[in-house]
């Protein structure tokens, strides 16, 4: 009778260990799946996209008979001076309009497409380690979750850099 009771205790102990391990595993898995870390991967094609779009000639010339600015020059102008273009449009508004048009032409996004959405930001970083970043252009379209590819492009602007970032969400 005593021997049987001892055996039962051992089985109960074993089951208890298994149950504790199982609960710990389920809790770990739950936390892991509920808060997945943003899965950003660097994308070569996105870098090529940003680099090429920065050369786009815009409709903005600051003065009469001055040259039309390239998009990277217009972004710089928007951040540093925010002057009005000769056509009456603000430099930031003109930059945003050009970026929106380029994005719309280059990437088709939506719930039924490969890419569900995109984001495009331009920030001023005083230095690379600086936590204080000044975002002055922000464009988003569609639905961006934690699964995306992205890349950045640097435009030097003393004393720091303008960082242009693009994300494509799938």
């Amino acid at each position: 009778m005593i021997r049987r009771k001892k055996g039962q205790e051992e089985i109960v102990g074993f089951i208890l260990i298994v149950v504790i391990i199982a609960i710990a595993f389920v809790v770990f898995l739950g936390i892991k799946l509920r808060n997945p870390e943003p899965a950003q991967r660097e994308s070569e094609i996105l870098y090529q996209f940003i680099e090429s779009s920065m050369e786009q000639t815009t409709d903005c010339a600051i003065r009469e008979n001055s040259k039309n600015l390239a998009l990277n020059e217009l972004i710089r102008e928007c951040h540093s001076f925010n002057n009005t273009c000769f056509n009456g449009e603000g430099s930031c508004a003109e930059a945003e309009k050009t970026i929106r048009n380029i994005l719309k032409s280059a990437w088709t996004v939506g719930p039924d497409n490969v890419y569900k959405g995109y984001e495009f930001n331009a920030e001023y970083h005083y230095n690379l380690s600086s936590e204080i970043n000044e975002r002055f252009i922000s464009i988003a379209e569609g639905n961006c979750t934690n699964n995306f590819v992205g890349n950045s492009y640097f435009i030097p602007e003393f004393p720091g850099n303008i960082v242009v970032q693009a994300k494509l969400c799938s």
Partner: protein
Amino acid sequence: MNLPRVRYSSSKGQFKIQQMVFIIVAIIILFGIVAVFFVSIKFGSLESDVEDLRKEAVFTQVRKMAGTPEFIWIASDDCSSCVDFDKVLMLKDRESYKGFWTDISLLKVSRVYPLYAAEECTTQNYPECNSVTLVNKGEYEAYESFVSLCRFDSSLKQKKCEIGKIIMGFEGVE
């Protein structure tokens, strides 16, 4: 010689060993299942990651085409992504360039923004057209890379660049 026969009562010990073995086996199986589950989650995306990396490498190769003497925009100080769109149009239908790009089934330069009504460029509709096809041999797997299509604009009296793509198709890419 007759040795005395001794009987050991070993059933209790055997039972204990059996119990221990069962527990060890059960724990190993449990941890095995957990490990398999973890590994399958961890490496589930490995195949698609490899595919993505391979594609990125091809995109880079396609982009290198923009740096070849036939495509490159040399009037600018520093623009590695700039393609001379005028030069590309001139290459079209040029007899001396027939068969120049061997192993390429498709070679096309297209404008991304802004788009015009005319799709294929000719000397009549240029620059208000969208693409110049230099090679088109039928079946291929196409890869594209973003570039800047630059030309001298006579109305602006300056260079004008627009975002475009170089599209290259290869036959039988595995």
